[in-house]
């Protein structure tokens, strides 16, 4: 048999039919739904008199719109959402899951959280499965070895009605990390660096597989962080092969297989590795030792630089369009070329998002903040756990106290300040050290200026009030 990549193995296992033009009817194993991209899909089903083919393969949870302030009042009644449109989207989701019989973790459920945190955490996302969601960061689930990608609303409808999608196969791309990471460098730094190297179009049309010893040694949560940002590198999906760590992470979770089923699943998952000699359409090799804690300076996730570096001079870029983009970025960001990154002051700190809101992320941030206080120039600093279960775990470990004693706010789970769709926003013209994944113009609120960083680096910035090399604090 010809040697196949991990992507090809998963793909081949899900093709129902192939049409002459190469389009394939592909089975979808798992479908995640949130309140923003699903209402029109359910509405279309209703209008056409169609039903959900396999309701048990869809899981719904609200995350984008939910405020991260308390949701229940003292007497246990639900506090209504102020923004009428957000409230309407939540109400629509509630009605739809009820009508179509879909498992739902509502805004006040302890399992509620960001859809990409909830999927793996509940054992709903599994290795070797096809996973889709009307959200581009679905790539996240590739961290457990699933082929996971974002889809549009018509496709959400298509999956609900047929449990399939019409797709053309992607090209394959290998990002290979050679050697080991240096101390103080985290998976977030790694993926920021990778995107800086390949660019935001580097993975377009491809599914990236992250390979090398670094990823084998990395925790499952770290792998989720890496895969999450594949979309920022232009790839619709990222993959990291599952292994014993993945299996240990999933075992015993609510929707994970049990008993004999579990053993059969693990046996199958063990076959899901890229074969020796398999060919990738594109290959990039990066030396892990070269990577320092990394931050962004501009308004594109590829605008990365080591914390030890400075703001680049736009004229230093070879490509004239990149020069123009860099000038516009720096103008928006209010930054001057040549300024050391460590002199950039921040007024806001956001620790959260589907990239960095799992327990290990919160532990990393708390380790830096323990016994320290946030700087006075930091006006707003929030920590938003990725799910209710992460929140419970963090509170059991006393991390919430570490945060609040340091002067940070401890919030309810949701997307929060990752995007300006709920009340958590960065004020215009102010800077935020953020553990999220996009530093686009206005992403964290109109006029907001975002620097993407790891949780430890966000915590370090909270302490000093400027972008800071966390290695100097420990």
């Amino acid at each position: 048999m010809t040697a196949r990549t991990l992507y090809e193995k998963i793909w081949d296992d899900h093709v129902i039919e192939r049409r002459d033009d190469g389009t394939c009817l592909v089975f979808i194993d798992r479908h995640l739904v949130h309140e923003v991209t699903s209402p029109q899909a359910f509405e279309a089903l209703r209008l056409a008199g169609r039903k959900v083919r396999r309701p048990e393969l869809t899981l719904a949870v609200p995350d984008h719109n939910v405020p991260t302030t308390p949701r229940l009042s003292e007497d246990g009644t639900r506090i209504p959402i102020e923004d009428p449109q957000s409230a309407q989207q939540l109400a629509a989701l509630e009605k739809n899951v009820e009508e179509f019989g879909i498992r739902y973790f509502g805004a006040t459920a302890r399992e509620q959280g960001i859809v990409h945190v909830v999927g793996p955490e509940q054992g709903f996302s599994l290795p070797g499965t096809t996973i889709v969601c009307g959200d581009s960061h679905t790539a996240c689930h590739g961290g457990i070895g699933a082929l996971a990608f974002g889809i549009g609303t018509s496709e959400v409808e298509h999956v609900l009605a047929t449990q399939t999608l019409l797709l053309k196969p992607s090209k394959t791309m290998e990002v290979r990390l050679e050697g080991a990471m240096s101390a103080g460098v985290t998976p977030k730094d790694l993926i920021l660096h990778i995107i800086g190297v390949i660019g935001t179009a580097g993975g377009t049309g491809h599914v990236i597989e992250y390979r090398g010893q670094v990823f084998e040694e990395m925790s499952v949560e770290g792998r989720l962080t890496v895969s999450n940002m594949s979309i920022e590198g232009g790839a619709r999906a990222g993959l990291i092969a599952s292994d014993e760590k993945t299996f240990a992470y999933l075992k015993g979770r609510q929707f994970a297989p049990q008993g004999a089923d579990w053993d059969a699943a693990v046996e199958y998952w063990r076959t899901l590795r890229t074969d020796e000699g398999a060919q990738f359409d594109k290959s990039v090799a990066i030396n892990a030792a070269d990577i320092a804690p990394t931050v962004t300076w501009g308004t594109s996730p590829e605008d990365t630089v080591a914390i030890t570096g400075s703001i680049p001079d736009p004229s230093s870029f070879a490509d004239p369009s990149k020069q123009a983009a860099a000038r516009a970025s720096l103008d928006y960001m209010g930054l001057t070329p040549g300024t050391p990154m460590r002199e950039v002051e921040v007024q806001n700190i956001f620790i959260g998002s589907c990239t960095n809101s799992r327990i290990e992320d919160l532990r990393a941030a708390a380790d830096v903040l323990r016994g320290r206080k946030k700087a006075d120039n930091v006006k707003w600093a929030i920590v938003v756990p990725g799910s209710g279960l992460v929140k419970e775990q963090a509170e059991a470990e006393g991390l919430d106290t570490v945060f609040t004693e340091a002067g940070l706010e401890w919030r309810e789970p949701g997307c929060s300040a990752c995007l300006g769709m709920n009340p958590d926003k960065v004020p215009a013209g102010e800077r935020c050290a953020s553990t999220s994944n996009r530093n686009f113009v206005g992403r964290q609120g109109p006029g907001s200026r975002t620097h993407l960083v790891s949780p430890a680096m966000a915590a370090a910035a909270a302490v000093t009030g400027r972008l800071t090399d966390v290695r100097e604090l420990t």
Partner: protein
Amino acid sequence: MDKLREVEGRAIPFGRKNIDTDVIIPARWLKTISREGLGEGAFETVRANEPDNPFDSEEFAGAPILIAGDNFGCGSSREHAAWALLDLGIRAVIAPSFSDIFAGNAFKNGILTVELPQTAIDRLLEVAQADQISIDLDAQSVTTPFQDRFAFEIDAFRKDCLMEGLDEVGLTLSRDGAISDFETGIRNQKPWLARGTGIAA
């Protein structure tokens, strides 16, 4: 979906290049729960800033065709852009090129995207000022009352779907047997996969 064989009528002459999805429908309209009514927000910034814009003119009210410039629909993947055009009554957009995602979203919602060279676009923009334009999907041509005739290419599958008014969901549902067989295979070979959240149909 309605069958689309011919589109005939006035065409909105909006020949601008690089119209992104934010221009077609600004982000604040994304919080809706319906596909309907988005026409109100379509080209909102253009309408607000340009009193003479064609979208507000009596003459082009209900026009089924939009003529645009290069790279129409670039930017985000929001399907709301296609819904907004549909809500305006537009069934076909003619431009030198489209963003892939927009073209896909348009097709999924029964909007025909026609790619023609800039010279043809220039001529159509001129005609559109006062006269009707016809698109014959079967013949793959755009014609004017003045003997202009421009041929265009279209993917055979998309053409078929549009002409027959087939939506992708309906098409796939007709493959129910193949999907059921595949599901049986999963139940036999990977029984651990079929359970999902455990809520049965």
